[in-house]
């Protein structure tokens, strides 16, 4: 990874954190052979796609591989007993 790519990751993470479209601080980004790899998890497919769109805006000349996972809401499990 070049120094330019290193700082690009930093700037993309800044935007993903503060941009109201995303507000996402926990996306891991790697650059491998000119492609941005996005990893992490989010709540909906719409948000997964929005994150990718914002990244494409910031790095239009690079490929993007979106490996962000959408979290399913599972039913609650048994109660944990908290002793006195």
């Amino acid at each position, binding site marked *: 990874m070049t120094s330019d790519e290193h700082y690009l990751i930093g700037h993309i993470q800044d935007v993903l954190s*503060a941009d*109201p479209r995303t*507000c996402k601080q*926990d996306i891991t980004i790697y650059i491998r052979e000119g492609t941005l790899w996005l990893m992490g*998890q989010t*709540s*909906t497919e*719409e*948000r997964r796609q929005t994150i990718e769109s914002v990244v494409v805006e910031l790095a239009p000349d690079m490929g993007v591989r979106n490996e962000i996972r959408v*979290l*399913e*809401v*599972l*039913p*609650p*499990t*048994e*109660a*944990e*007993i*908290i*002793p*006195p």
Partner: protein
Amino acid sequence: MIRVAAIGDVHFSEDSRGRFRAQWERTHESADVLLLAGDLTQHGDPAQAEALADELEGIGVPVVAVLGNHEHHEGHEEQVRQVLERRGVRVLEGEVTTLDLGGRTLGIAGTKGFGGGFVGACCHKFGEPLMKAFVQHTEELAARLRENLASLDTDHRVALLHYSPVEATLVGERLEIYPFLGSYLLGEAIDAAGADLVLHGHAHRGSEKGVTPGGVPVRNVAFPVLRHAFAIYQLEEPRRLAKTA
């Protein structure tokens, strides 16, 4: 015995509608109260709070919440609070509430909390005014939390936070960001005043279970950690000694 359901970091927006509803509308079957540990909205838009309130409509148990850092992003945190309170959610910002749940009382002291880090690797009130203000904010919230917990004369007491009071529930996050995820000052306040349980969110990559140095159970209920609609914690009664003849 009181059953506490808890979840944090649901980050509601228009596109969240319906995600939790099927599980939340059955909350009354398994819990007596639902606590929300901050980051209720995606970026603090009051319309996002309305979407959350719609999802919580008629779930049949009291709902108590604290705000998180996301509610502060656009500076509309007061409107977010007003929306939620108007829709029946009790929001605690350095405040307490007491609930009578089937004859047992539950006291909840709630605060967003803030960062600063943990013993041996934390920020201090030294140098630039911005750094002093950062630490001062946490100190003030922690002092209020301590007073509020101590003021509760209830069968059970729960501290409801957004930021973490201990490192144990941050395990999984990068060590470098611990000072932005919580503060030992919150843990110190809880240990000084006492509590049955501490609930917090904020650390999406953290761990569910921890304990304060003084022995109070701490649970990180951030949705990305739990991956369930909520967790349930059953607060047991102290065992009574049998009467002897």
